[in-house]
C-alpha cells in the first residue's frame, strides 16, 4: 500500500467534458440531485478523480477503474455516487462506498440485482425485495473487496423514512442508520434537538462548535445520522474551499490534499458533500466527550 513517503507518478486526470454549443450540463450531488456548476473553465476536472487518487494510493486503481467502466457502460452517466471513508488518525484505513439512487434519469431495470451483475467478477451480498419502497442502495468496498478477495456488502435506504438497513444473504436486514436532513438555516432547531440527545456527546460549550464548525454552515442541507456505534453529521453541497478545510480538519492523507490543492481551480465548478462520524470517549471528562472516528467525502460519476 502506497504511503505519503512514496510519491506516486502523475495520474492522467479525467476531464469534465462539456458538449460544444450545449447548455451547461447539470452536475449531481450525493443525493444524486442535479445542480448547476458554480463556475466553468476549459480545464475542469471530474470529482471522481479524488476517488481515483484514493484508489491509486491504495494500489487498487486498476480494479476500481474497471468497476467504474462496467457501471458506466451498464448504467450510463451520472448514476453513481461515490464516497471515500477515512478513519481519523489512520491514513491507511480507507474504504469506499458506491451509492445508487432511484432518480428520473435512471436507466430501465435499475435495481440492486442489475448493479450486482455489473459488479461481477466482484461478488455483492444482499437483495432488495420488490415490494420495498427503496430510495437508494449502496455497496461498500475496501481493498480486499475491490480485489475480489471478499464479498462486498450492501445496504438499502428506504424512502421517506431516513432509515437504512444492512442487507445480508442469509440473515434478516439489520437496522443501520437513521438520517435527518434539514436546511441549515431554517431547520437548525431540529438539527440541534437531534444533536442534543446524542449519546455520543455531552453538554459542553464547545460540543456544537466541533460538531458544526462555522466554516461548514454554508451548505444546502445538514444531516444528523444516528448509527449503531456512532452518530454523524453530514454537509451537502459545500464548495471546494470548504472541502479543503474539512480534509485538513480530519487529517486526511497529505498526498491527496496536496493533489486537490494543486488542482483547486479545476475542481471549483463542483459542489461537494461531507460527513463525519463521532463517538463518545468517556475518558474525556472535561471536554465534549467525543472524538471523530471517521470522515467521508462524496461526489458523483
Amino acid at each position: 500500500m502506497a504511503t505519503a513517503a512514496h510519491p506516486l507518478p502523475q495520474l492522467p486526470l479525467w476531464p469534465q467534458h462539456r458538449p460544444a454549443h450545449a447548455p451547461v450540463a447539470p452536475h449531481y450531488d450525493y443525493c444524486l440531485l442535479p445542480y448547476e456548476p458554480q463556475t466553468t473553465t476549459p480545464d475542469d476536472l471530474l470529482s471522481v478523480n479524488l476517488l481515483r487518487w484514493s484508489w491509486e494510493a491504495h494500489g487498487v486503481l486498476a480494479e476500481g477503474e474497471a468497476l467504474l467502466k462496467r457501471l458506466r457502460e451498464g448504467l450510463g452517466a451520472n448514476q453513481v455516487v461515490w464516497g471515500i471513508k477515512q478513519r481519523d488518525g489512520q491514513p491507511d484505513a480507507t474504504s469506499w462506498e458506491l451509492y445508487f439512487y432511484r432518480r428520473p434519469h435512471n436507466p430501465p431495470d435499475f435495481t440492486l440485482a442489475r448493479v450486482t451483475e455489473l459488479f461481477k467478477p466482484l461478488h455483492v451480498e444482499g437483495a432488495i425485495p420488490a415490494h420495498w419502497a427503496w430510495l437508494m442502495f449502496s455497496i461498500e468496498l475496501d481493498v480486499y473487496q475491490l480485489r475480489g478477495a471478499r464479498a462486498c456488502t450492501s445496504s438499502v435506504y428506504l424512502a421517506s423514512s431516513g432509515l437504512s438497513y444492512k442487507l445480508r444473504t442469509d440473515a434478516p436486514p439489520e437496522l443501520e442508520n437513521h438520517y435527518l436532513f434539514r436546511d441549515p438555516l431554517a431547520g437548525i432547531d431540529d438539527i440541534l434537538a437531534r444533536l442534543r440527545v446524542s449519546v455520543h456527546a455531552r453538554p459542553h460549550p464547545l460540543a456544537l462548535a466541533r460538531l458544526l464548525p462555522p466554516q461548514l454552515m454554508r451548505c444546502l442541507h445538514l444531516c444528523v445520522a444516528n448509527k449503531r456505534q456512532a452518530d454523524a453529521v453530514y454537509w451537502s453541497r459545500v464548495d471546494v474551499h470548504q472541502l479543503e478545510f474539512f480534509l485538513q480538519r480530519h487529517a486526511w492523507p497529505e498526498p491527496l490534499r496536496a493533489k486537490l490543492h494543486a488542482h483547486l481551480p479545476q475542481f471549483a465548478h463542483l459542489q461537494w458533500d461531507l460527513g463525519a462520524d463521532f463517538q463518545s470517549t468517556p475518558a474525556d471528562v472535561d471536554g465534549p466527550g467525543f472524538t471523530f472516528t471517521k470522515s467521508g467525502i462524496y461526489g458523483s460519476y
Partner: protein
Amino acid sequence: MARTSMRHATAAPDPLVPLERTMPHSVLVAFGFRCNLACTFCMVEDVLGQRPGTDLATFRAFARDPQHTRGIRQIVLSGGEATLEPELLEYIAIARSIPSVEHVRIQTNATRLGSGALLDELIAAGADEFFVSVHGADEPTMAAITQRPGAFAAVLAGLEAIAASSARLYTNTCTVQQNYRQLTDIVRLIAPLRPAGMDFWNLWPRVDHTAMRQQMVPVAELQPYLLGALDACADARIAATVKWFPRCLLGRHANCQDDSQPTTLIDRDYWEAVPSYACLWAGVCDHARTGCSGLSHAYIETFGWEEATLRPQRHEASAPATTVAAAPDGALQAWAATLDLGVGAALLDWRIASVARHQAGVRWLLTQNQQQFAVDVRPRDDRQPAWRRTAQFDVTHGQIPDAVRQDATQVLPVFLARIELATTLPL
C-alpha cells in the same frame, strides 16, 4: 469648513441614533501603515510596515471618477496612524475635491494632536471629524494595550484639543480582556468632551492567532459591562455604536448595534485575512436578516456557538415546531416536516403557509411579503403535463405573481430538491 459645519448644525440627527447607520455613503481610504502605538489587538498588525496602502495617485484617480464617487458624502482617512503620514494634507485635499463629500474624517490615536498645531493644520485643510481610539480609562490599562507608557496622557491631550476645536469628536474603544470592565469609566472620561458619538467594537480577529484569541471576552461576561457603557452614553445623550457583538444581547440598546463598514480602498490582499462571522440562529433570527453578523469563527472555535446565551429574535413563522399549533391533518403535516417542507419552513425568502391534500396529490402554498403561489405534487404520470418530474412525482405550480417571479424561479429548485427526498405521498 464653515459650510460643512453648518450642515451639521442644521441637520443634527437624534443623538441616540448612530449617524452613519449603514455607511452607504462613506469610503475609507487606508494608507501609511505605520503607527506610534502597538495595540495588542491591532487589526492591521500584519501589514504595518509591509504594505503601502492606497497611494495618492490611486486615491486621486478614484476621486476623479464620478462613477466611483457618486453619492459619497464622507471620506475616512485611516492607517496605521494617519497623522504620521507626511502626505496626509494632500489626502484631505483630494477628499475635499470630490463634490459630494461633506465630511472628511481622520481615524487617529490623537497622540500627535495635543499640541494643537497639527490639529489646526488638518482642520484648515478640510478635516472636520476625528475618530479617536480610546482603549482604556487609565494609564496602566492604556499602557498595557498600546504597549507604550504615557500613551494615556497623550491621547487625552489630543481628545481635549479636538473637543476644543471646530471639528467633531468621535471615539472608538475596542473591547478586549484588558479593558472590558472599565467601559463605563471610558464613557465617563469622554462624556465631558461632548463627543458626537462613541463606538465600541468587539475584537475583530483579522489577525487570528493564539494571543488574539486570548484577548476575546466571552459575550456573557462582556454583556453587563457593555450595557453599562451604553446606559452611560444614553444618559449623556451620546450616540453609541456597537460592532461585532450579538445584537440579541443588547436589550434596549439593540438599535446601537451596526456591523456595517464603509467601502474601503486598501491593498487587495488585506481582505484575504478578514475574519468570517456566523450565528447558529441566523436562519431563524430577524437580527441576522438585518445585519447582525453573529460571532467570529475564531470566537466560536474558542468559546463555542453560545447557543444557550444568544437570544434569537424569531420570526413568528420560524418558531420552534413545538410552539406551532397542531395541524388538523397530523400525518400529512408530520410527513411534510420530515422533508423540511412543513408549515412555517423557510425556503430562501419564502415560507410554507400551508400543506394540504389537493385532488390526487398534495398542495403547498408558498408565501413571501403577502405574495403567494401554489406548488402541487402528484404521483408521477408521464401522460400528464408537469413542470418537473421526479422518479415518483409530477410537480406543477400555480400562477406566480409578476412581482415575485424572479424569486419564485429560485425557490422552486429548492422545493424540488426537498421533495425528491421522498418517494411516496401520504394520500
